[in-house]
């Protein structure tokens, strides 16, 4: 008896009890749907984070003052030995670290910006012209902070679009004078609209020359230095170069840390990969429950059709024919349930982002393949026992079964 014949017999049996078959399949459908849906939500989060981090600028290096160690453990702070990062450190990197395309000194703080009677507390970032390139944030109208602005500690400011709208509305802001912590600043540019990135509103900031920022916040140190390399492969060698230059300037102490975009990316990737696997695993349990449903219904079915098994054996069915008939019935239930579950899961995963914008989803091919093969495997695993039970029925007792 060939496969197609057996399949026809199994399909016929499934269709002869549509309600029961449908409910049994529902268990598998929900299981597969849950796997596809949860995995695509996990994947969606991963893709989103990766995109956002990459959007910050590729091949990015972040140099921060103070030593943090990746190997863990407790390091007592040795007072007075931690040197701050200075504007001169950044200048030294710009001049001597030839592996770097840029080395941008950053100061960061908050300030109250006022125009006439309107005011707003906002984030103030002191930068140099290269910041635009390193962070992929560009000026929209007017111009950005120039090198001569930095050199002369010019009191000029570039506004994020949100700050501009709050203070000026539809009016032209260029050339206007605003007050920033009691100092007069001239607006020279407005940034492009960028939106929120990783929970940080990029439009709700203002940019001033880094030197003016140090004056504003009364400090000679930097928050961080952003550096970038032309190619991702150069990152490791660039780190070595930065270290050798800065260590010399810092009395031979490595009192700074260098984070790379790639390292952050891979850390996030790992965390979210684990998250996805956990979500998929939880969903997998419901698929398992669906499988138990199949086994349950197959056992009932074998019992109900004891006489049929006896008749089939009497007219020449081998044990393996009976086994195949019931096994294929179980696999068909789980397989069809799997396909329906995939269609529903993918459909819902594609619809979700249209209504819930904060929940990005990404349907991955591997989750579909995995969910389907898992559902088939569930059919085989939970179908074997009932099918074997059917095939080993004694034909004489089976024929007498009422």
């Amino acid at each position, binding site marked *: *008896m*060939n496969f197609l*014949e057996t399949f026809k*017999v199994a399909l*016929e*049996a499934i269709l*002869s009890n549509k309600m029961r078959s449908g409910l049994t399949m529902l268990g598998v459908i929900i299981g597969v749907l849950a796997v596809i849906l949860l995995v695509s939500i996990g994947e969606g989060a991963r893709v989103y984070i990766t995109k956002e981090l990459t959007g910050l600028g590729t091949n990015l290096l972040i140099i921060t003052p103070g030593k943090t160690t990746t190997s863990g453990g407790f390091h007592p702070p040795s007072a007075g030995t931690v040197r701050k990062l200075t504007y001169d450190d950044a200048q030294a990197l710009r001049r001597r670290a030839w592996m770097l395309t840029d080395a941008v000194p950053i100061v960061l703080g908050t300030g109250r910006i006022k125009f006439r009677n309107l005011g707003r507390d906002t984030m103030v970032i002191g930068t140099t012209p290269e910041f635009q390139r390193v962070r992929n944030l560009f000026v929209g109208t007017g111009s950005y902070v120039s090198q001569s602005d930095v050199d002369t500690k010019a009191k000029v400011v570039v506004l994020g679009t949100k700050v501009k709208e709050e203070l000026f509305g539809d009016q032209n802001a260029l050339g206007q004078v605003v007050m920033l912590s009691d100092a007069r600043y001239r607006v020279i540019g407005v940034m492009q609209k960028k939106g929120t990135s990783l929970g940080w509103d990029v439009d709700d900031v203002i940019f001033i020359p880094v030197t003016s920022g140090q004056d504003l916040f009364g400090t000679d140190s930097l928050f961080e230095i952003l550096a970038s390399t032309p190619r991702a492969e150069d990152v490791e060698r660039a780190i070595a170069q930065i270290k050798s230059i800065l260590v010399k300037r810092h009395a031979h102490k490595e009192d700074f840390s260098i984070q790379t975009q790639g390292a952050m990316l891979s850390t996030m990737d790992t965390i979210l990969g684990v998250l996805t696997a956990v979500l998929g695993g939880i969903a997998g349990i419901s698929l398992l429950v669906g499988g138990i449903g199949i086994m349950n219904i197959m056992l009932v079915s074998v019992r109900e059709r004891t*006489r*049929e098994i*006896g*008749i*089939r*054996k*009497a*007219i*020449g*069915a*081998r*044990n*393996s*024919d009976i086994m195949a008939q019931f096994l294929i019935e179980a696999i068909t239930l789980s397989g069809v349930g799997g396909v329906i579950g995939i269609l529903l899961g993918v459909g819902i995963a594609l619809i979700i982002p249209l209504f819930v914008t904060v929940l990005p989803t990404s349907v991955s091919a591997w989750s579909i393949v995995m969910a389907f093969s898992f559902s088939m495997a569930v059919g085989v695993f939970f179908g074997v026992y009932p099918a074997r039970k059917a095939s080993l029925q004694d*034909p*004489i007792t089976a*024929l007498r079964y009422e």
Partner: protein
Amino acid sequence: MIELRDISKNYRMGEMDICALCGVSVTVNAGELIAIMGPSGSGKSTLMNLLGCLDRPTSGTYTFEGREISAMNDDDLAHVRNAKIGFVFQSFNLLPRFSALKNVEMPLVYSGIPAKGRTERAVPVLEKVGLKDRMFHKPTELSGGQQQRVAIARALVNNPPLLLADEPTGNLDSHSGEEILNILVNLNNQGVTIMIVTHDHDVAARCKRIINLKDGKIVGDQVAP
């Protein structure tokens, strides 16, 4: 065609072994029409199951067309049942979900014959038992006599040399029973070896040979004059 030599079939009941058949020896030649009679518990059904290759004897040898049945494995037995033996049961044993035609085709499925060839072979057999016009009906839509005729068609579809009938008229009214019996006698005239288990002396009277069983032993074996 069939040779049973010193066949015993024992069942364990608690501590005791009880023999349902105790050393039965029978020879059946091709073309015979045999009635097997005896009271309940005499071993008729056990003998039938052994002859039909649904069961194996505890001891003794069973040779069917020169082949030793008692030594065969399950798959070989299934093949013999499929190709060499047709069964007719008291309670018809048709599959209720399938039409008469599909029921008759069923043994051919296990012979590995493709769908088209099955129908080509099943339809003439149904015609032979006078049910061609009812072949798309399900068993529940047929009378008892008609169901038994479908069962006979199913037993015949693979042209087996041996037909085993277990009380084939037991569930039928006398008119339908007579019809079924006529079909069986007719088949025997065409050369099919038939063995009928029955309580009914009228049925036995139509047979050429009557074997009487009692307590697992043959107590009578006479050929009708």
